[in-house]
């Protein structure tokens, strides 16, 4: 037995060293579980116990046998366990590494080495001295080239123009898939709505409308005319349009090849195009009766007309505002840039700025103008729900008026711009116009819309850049935009990684990739990412929106008033069927999407601007980022996810990071969920507006890679470096990456950027549907993950091709930074 202290003693004196005998210890090993599965994100804890307790430090190395290979099939935290004096248990963790290959199960035995030859004095192996683990394959088959080519999916979007005698139905057949579609036909049918759920006779039926093959990501437009003389006064009608063949219903229950709109005929036999206030008695109570269901404002775990409730506390934390009633958004001009806005809605009318709204369909010079429409009334003739009216209620439905709900900012001034009905003229809608409409006076623009797959969006970029620099007397307007609902939109193929990264990223909409816009993700009532909410590095914050209002809560908000109009006239459960809670059919309990998340943030911004009118647009972003909190619900994976591609590990998903400036960031949530109480507290704690320094936008720093081959199916990928010679004392406000290249199928690529401070951001997730089937890469991507860090130094770009077959090159890449000087 070795009883020598190897280091001897430092006791003073001239006598011989005192040799202490070592107390022998016995080690045993156990495991929490014995089976791991690739890709499961699970880990096994391995415990080593020492007996007896001894007052010295001990190291216990572990040995490994079996056909599983370290850093190929598994990874382990510590291979040598260190025990401090008196410590009797030490733990290490083993995780299976995924490789997206089909293979047999592997085994791994973890045991103690021969301590006698391993220089572990006084340590003996006890029983058990080993554990054997099995690593099961997750039975993923590698993607084949054909699978990667994707599929066809026709999304039908209809809009209508209304003349005096004829309505023109515009059919937009958009192939959101990744393969060209085959030639097909569309049909249109119109019928009378007797009452919700009950339909009368068919009025017109038009079939065999030819639809040619549609290229991926392109739209084919055609139109049909309806003879309005066949429709009776005072009746409501629905128009249903369909492109054949019907697709298989996906997991979300969508039927994207169909669309419907509706309209109501007025007493004169013309389509109703103006808002006329309903004749209702004034309520005698002052409370907002549906407030108890507004979990985004105060989440008590209520079910909000769904089967199950949420998680208490997962809301926008506005307890102080709810208690005191201030701030309330008073004096803040908010534009709802959307499909329409029902300016006579009983719960909205109080906050509508008279003459301030604008109907983009009222221009008589426009060949598609709506007959009889009023320029100042953005009324949507479509009777099946006005998206803008639901958005407006979230922002600024009146409070304490005895009706329905309250908005986040119930005294904000509302302007409705039905820009989406015209699909034109962003200068007018987003702040470039001083008359017809006067959008220059808007403080906050809510943009609950998006587009499919666009790598270019320069016109909007210049307008929002102008708005942030010039509006609000130079303080800058605030643009709040929905991130997108494409997390589960696997229009190319489905892969297990999509459960972490999403099928299609928020970068599919070019306007999300500019720093002048606050991009908002959606949360559900349990405090997790809403199932549909697009993820990406361009998110700024998140806000509640909910799920579908069936099993889990959605958002309760205003709807077109009346039982025969609005979303509530459709076949929805919940409030639409509850005549006691909503006696007139003015509200809707199934509103969701990042469309519902953005207006919650818009309302919050209105509160902040009332509290401190001197805030610049950058202040607003800074305050939101500084005070956002991590949501409390479950997230997809609580660790980074790495996969063995070829012989190298590649990271495809990052858990929450804390960057070098101390900001938390996650591609699913941005900086987190907005927190009103915290934001107001920050403002009241001596926050100095306009103290972030002058914002500078750097030139592009470009690296020409001249056809650099991207290694196929290789986790090492391309790793490139670029030095940004920018002021070291500055603080990043956004980083934009431009990539140029070609690839036989860009969907294979994962793109990661690492800052000089070591912060990583996945700017394009692997197998991103946005790029599926594309071969030309000319893309500007934005990341907010580096906010507050110094831009100066060496940046690292990693481009990884994660699938076998299909190859390509990177021709150049470039970075530019927006930065200021933050206190």
């Amino acid at each position, binding site marked *: 037995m070795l009883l020598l202290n190897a280091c001897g003693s430092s006791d003073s004196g001239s006598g011989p060293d005192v040799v202490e005998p070592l107390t022998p210890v016995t080690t045993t090993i156990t495991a929490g579980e014995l089976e791991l599965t690739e890709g499961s994100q699970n880990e096994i804890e391995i415990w080593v116990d020492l007996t007896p307790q001894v007052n010295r430090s001990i190291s216990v190395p572990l040995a490994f046998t079996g056909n599983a290979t370290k850093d190929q099939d598994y990874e382990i935290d510590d291979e040598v366990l260190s025990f401090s004096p008196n410590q009797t248990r030490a733990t290490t963790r083993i995780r299976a590494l995924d490789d997206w290959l089909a293979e047999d199960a592997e085994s791994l035995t973890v045991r103690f080495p021969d301590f006698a030859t391993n220089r572990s004095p006084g340590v003996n192996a006890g029983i058990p001295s080993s554990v054997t683990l099995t690593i099961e394959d997750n039975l993923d088959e590698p993607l084949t080239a054909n699978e990667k080519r994707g599929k066809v999916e026709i999304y039908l979007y209809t809009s209508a123009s209304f003349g005096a005698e004829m309505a023109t139905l515009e059919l937009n057949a958009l192939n959101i898939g990744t393969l060209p579609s085959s030639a097909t036909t569309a049909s249109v049918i119109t019928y009378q709505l007797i009452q919700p759920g009950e339909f009368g006779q068919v009025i017109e039926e038009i079939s065999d*409308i030819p639809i040619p093959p549609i290229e991926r990501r392109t739209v084919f*437009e*055609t139109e049909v005319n309806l003879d309005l003389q066949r429709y009776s006064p005072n009746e409501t009608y629905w128009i249903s349009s369909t492109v054949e063949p019907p697709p298989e219903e996906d997991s979300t229950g969508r039927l994207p090849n169909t669309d419907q709109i509706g309209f109501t005929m007025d007493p004169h036999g013309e389509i109703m195009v103006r808002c006329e206030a309903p004749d209702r008695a004034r309520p005698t109570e002052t409370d907002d009766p549906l407030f108890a269901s507004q979990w985004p404002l105060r989440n008590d775990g209520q079910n909000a007309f769904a089967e199950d409730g949420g998680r208490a506390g997962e809301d926008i934390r506005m307890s102080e505002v709810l208690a005191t009633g201030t701030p309330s958004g008073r004096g803040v001009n908010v534009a709802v840039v959307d499909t329409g806005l029902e300016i006579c809605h009983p719960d909205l009318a109080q906050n509508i700025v008279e003459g301030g709204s604008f109907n983009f369909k009222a221009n008589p010079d426009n060949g598609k103008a709506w007959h009889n429409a009023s320029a100042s009334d953005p009324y949507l003739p479509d009777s099946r729900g006005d998206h803008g009216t639901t958005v407006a209620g979230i922002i600024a439905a009146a409070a304490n008026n005895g009706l329905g709900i309250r908005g986040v900012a119930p005294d904000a001034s509302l302007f409705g711009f039905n820009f989406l009905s015209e699909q034109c003229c962003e200068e007018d809608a987003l702040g470039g116009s001083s008359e017809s409409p006067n959008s220059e006076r808007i403080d906050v623009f809510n943009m609950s819309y998006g587009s499919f797959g666009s790598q270019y969006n320069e016109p909007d970029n210049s307008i929002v850049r102008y708005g942030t620099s010039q509006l609000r007397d130079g303080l800058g307007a605030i643009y709040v935009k929905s991130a997108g609902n494409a997390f589960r939109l696997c229009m190319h193929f489905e892969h297990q990684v999509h459960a972490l990264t999403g099928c299609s990223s928020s970068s599919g909409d070019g306007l999300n990739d500019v720093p002048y816009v606050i991009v908002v993700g959606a949360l559900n009532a349990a405090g997790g990412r809403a199932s549909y909410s697009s993820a990406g590095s361009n998110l700024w914050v998140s806000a509640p929106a909910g799920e579908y209002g069936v099993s889990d809560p959605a958002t309760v908000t205003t709807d077109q008033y009346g039982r025969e109009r609005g979303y509530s006239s459709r076949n929805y459960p919940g409030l639409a069927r509850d005549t006691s809670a909503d006696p007139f059919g003015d509200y809707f309990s199934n509103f969701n999407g990042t469309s519902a998340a953005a207006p919650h943030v818009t309302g919050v911004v209105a509160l902040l601007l009332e509290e401190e009118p001197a805030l610049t647009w950058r202040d607003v972003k800074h305050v939101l980022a500084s005070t956002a909190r991590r949501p409390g619900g479950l997230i997809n994976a609580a660790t980074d996810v790495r996969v063995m591609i070829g012989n190298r590990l590649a990271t495809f998903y990052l858990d929450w990071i804390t960057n070098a400036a101390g900001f938390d960031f996650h591609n699913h949530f941005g900086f987190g969920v907005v927190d009103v109480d915290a934001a107001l507290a920050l403002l009241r704690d001596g926050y100095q507006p306009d103290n972030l320094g002058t914002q500078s936008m750097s030139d592009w720093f470009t690296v020409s890679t001249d056809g650099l081959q991207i290694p196929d199916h290789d986790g090492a990928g391309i790793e490139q470096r670029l030095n940004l010679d920018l002021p070291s004392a500055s603080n990043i406000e956004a980083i934009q990456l431009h990539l140029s290249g070609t690839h036989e199928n860009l969907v294979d690529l994962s793109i990661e950027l690492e800052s000089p401070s070591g912060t990583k951001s996945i700017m394009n997730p692997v197998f991103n549907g946005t790029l599926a089937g594309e071969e030309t890469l000319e893309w500007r991507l934005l990341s907010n993950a580096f906010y507050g860090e110094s831009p100066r130094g060496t940046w690292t770009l990693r481009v990884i091709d994660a699938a076998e077959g299909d190859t390509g090159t990177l021709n150049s890449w470039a970075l530019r930074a927006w930065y200021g000087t933050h206190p």
Partner: protein
Amino acid sequence: MSRKQASRLSDQAPRFHHAGAWLYGVLLCLVVAPALAQTQPLNKFTHADQALIQVSETALTEPVTTESGTVLRVERLGELIRFTATNARVVTHSQWYDVTRREPHVVFGTTDKRFHEVANRVLVKLDNPERLSVIAEEVDAVRAKRYPGLGYSILWLRPGQNPISTVKQLQSDHRIKHAELQLKRPLMIPL
């Protein structure tokens, strides 16, 4: 049935109500198209840092080859027009338009290698913005609006008016500092 739909069905143009017939029509057109691209002067424009090539039917009567080797074709099939980009004999992009709605004015982006429909509006920057109404009248625009903060004006053209030729006309006018095509935006939808 609508008047418009009735006119569709009574038209003498080929009708393709079945995928097989469509395929036959497409194949027929590809067979009769010239096998080799012709040399033809290309009308070029710039938009958002991207060079655009005019490919509307009126400008492109024969297939042409771009500098990067992409062959651009236009084919008419009854009430439809198809624009096709081919590289190394592989169709890299194509786009159909229903010409009963409007005559599409189409350009090909040399960077994104896609066809884009031109919007019926034109962006102009004038030496003297007060002259906008005069300019609008001269080009027969239906409407004009100044955006002083943005530093430009927009001219809206009549349905059927060709924005490409209007831009060319404006670009040759010494009173106009800049005239630019506007591309039709991707469809924006509520989320």
